[in-house]
């Protein structure tokens, strides 16, 4: 019987991130569709206790690695741990979340396993004969393609927000501990902590219901012939504070900053969405002072409801990319929006 392994890691507090539970859902579905056995593997701090929280998922076996060496998200130790765990589980299909930790280490682990790997999977379907077909985007969310592979093991790294997080009963998983002989040179890197980017406040909120995207127009000369960057900063930050929206940026706005011009000080390349930025998933998105041209609009691929405030009725947003385009001055509109909120 073939085995589908749901591979997860814990967070700093020992809990499983939402993305891990989403990967468990995908793995469970694949196992059920193909008649394969489901296994669960967890690495990281508190791995055994974390496995207990998903004990009711129907897995035939649970495997954990909770050594101190895998507390930090470090390539060398993570790759060694994942390699050992997948071998112990004897998995042919491995489903893992596309977290920064796994995106760092799984490609290297796949090389060590002699496996194949595909990332950013947005849909997966198995057949009773064990064949699996997956779907992902190419050219940065511009072309959608599906494919299958005969090679095994096959590591499937699924995008977050695609599958519903697994929910079910906790219990005793009776997880088996996988022993790993970590190489001496595997700890040349020391993870010293996490740091927020230079900004006044944390403005990237992946779970926010609304994405607010600011474009370069906020920094341009306004009706009086002068730029009003301080006013723009105030309006945007007030809006973010009232709505707890996540803040995105167009490329042109963050590029202004790297070119040394005065711009919104709380914005960095981390906020950038689009062809060369991120493609976040939020139920709603509001664009202000942006042009919805294709490289920018690909950042909105996974935003369900889209509205834009723009002075140009002919801008790219009006070409079937947004649901509503308000032709108005974003300074006036956002000031009034903040009052109403």
């Amino acid at each position, binding site marked *: 019987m073939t085995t589908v392994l749901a591979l997860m890691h814990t967070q700093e507090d020992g809990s499983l991130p939402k993305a891990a539970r989403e990967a468990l859902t995908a793995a469970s579905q694949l196992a059920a569709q193909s008649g394969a056995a489901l296994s669960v593997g967890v690495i990281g701090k508190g791995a055994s206790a974390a496995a207990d929280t998903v004990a009711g998922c129907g897995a035939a076996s649970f495997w954990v690695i909770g050594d101190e060496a895998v507390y930090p998200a470090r390539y060398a130790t993570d790759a060694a741990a994942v390699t050992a765990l997948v071998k112990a589980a004897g998995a042919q299909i491995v489903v893992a979340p596309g977290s920064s930790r796994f995106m760092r280490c799984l490609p290297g682990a796949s090389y060590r396993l002699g496996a194949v790997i595909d990332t950013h999977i947005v849909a997966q379907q198995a057949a009773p004969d064990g064949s699996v077909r997956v779907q992902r985007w190419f050219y940065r969310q511009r072309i959608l393609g599906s494919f299958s592979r005969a090679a095994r093991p096959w590591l499937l790294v699924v995008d977050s927000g695609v599958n519903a997080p697994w929910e079910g009963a906790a219990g005793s998983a009776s997880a088996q501990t996988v022993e790993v002989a970590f190489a001496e040179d595997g700890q040349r890197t020391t993870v010293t902590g996490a740091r*927020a980017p230079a900004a006044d406040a944390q403005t990237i909120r992946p779970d926010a219901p609304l994405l607010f995207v600011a474009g370069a127009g906020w920094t341009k000369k306004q009706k009086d012939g002068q730029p009003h960057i301080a006013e723009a900063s105030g309006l945007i930050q007030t809006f973010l504070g009232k709505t707890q929206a996540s803040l995105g940026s167009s490329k042109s706005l963050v590029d202004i900053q790297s070119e040394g011009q005065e711009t919104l000080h709380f914005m960095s390349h981390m906020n950038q969405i689009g062809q060369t930025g991120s493609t976040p998933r939020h139920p709603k998105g509001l664009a202000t002072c942006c042009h919805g041209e294709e490289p920018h609009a690909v950042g909105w691929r996974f935003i369900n409801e889209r509205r834009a405030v723009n002075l140009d009725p002919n801008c790219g947003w009006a070409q079937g990319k947004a649901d509503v385009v308000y032709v108005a001055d974003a300074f006036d509109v956002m000031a009034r929006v903040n009052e109403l909120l």
Partner: protein
Amino acid sequence: MTDGFQLVVCGSLVPDPLQTLEPVSTPQGPGLKNEMMLPSVLDPWAAHALYEAADLAKRFPGSKVWLVSLGPKAKLQQLMMTVAQKVPFELIALDGSASGFTDALGVAEALAGAIEAIPGLDKSRLLVFGGCASASRDAGVTLQVVGERLGIRDQFVGVDMLTVRPEGGFEVLERIEGGQYQVSVCAGAPAVLAWATGNLPEPPNNPQIGMANMRGVMPALQKAKPAAAGVGGMAYGDVELPSQKRQTRIVKDATADEIAREIVEWIKA
């Protein structure tokens, strides 16, 4: 680090983001309509990696930058007309497909082979740079496999900053969830760094750098070895453009107050 770094940047061409892409079927697997005619740019994240490498090389005497690039030879030549004017590097060209539909593992194998063949490569000074993903395949797989293939166990992905420490080693900031950075200290080279945007702007064109680079670029292109990177074991099914045309409602003559009310109602709904 008195001897400087050996900085190998992996990066190739991608279609200009402003171009309309249309998938077509070819005997080699999916491709793009008029792929050879599409204007290309250096992959954006790889470009950031190249600028960071050049900056590091400038600050640490004895360092050298190589650009290892896999793509159709003719298109690489076009690309070099602009890229070569940015920063000093030595090109190592591999003649093969730069398609986003190729398998990352085959590409990594070809790149690792080319890096290993660099004369005088000293792994104790080696930093392998590249983008954290390409704007074509966007897999985020290639560099890590290159690192494994070269036996490099210190790898960083989504890097925005590398700071060489006076006492040895370097500090790395990697992008992680929630708009934060993971901070790590690495004992030193060899290491793999897959860059996000970094912190440097695009350097202006410098014709003198361009002329110096081009002296090596043309011979490198002439002796570019063919690389058999293809779709590998991927059996493609449907490859299509998303049909996401929306019925856009354009609100032209409303007051700021009316628009604000509508937006607030929509946000709260």
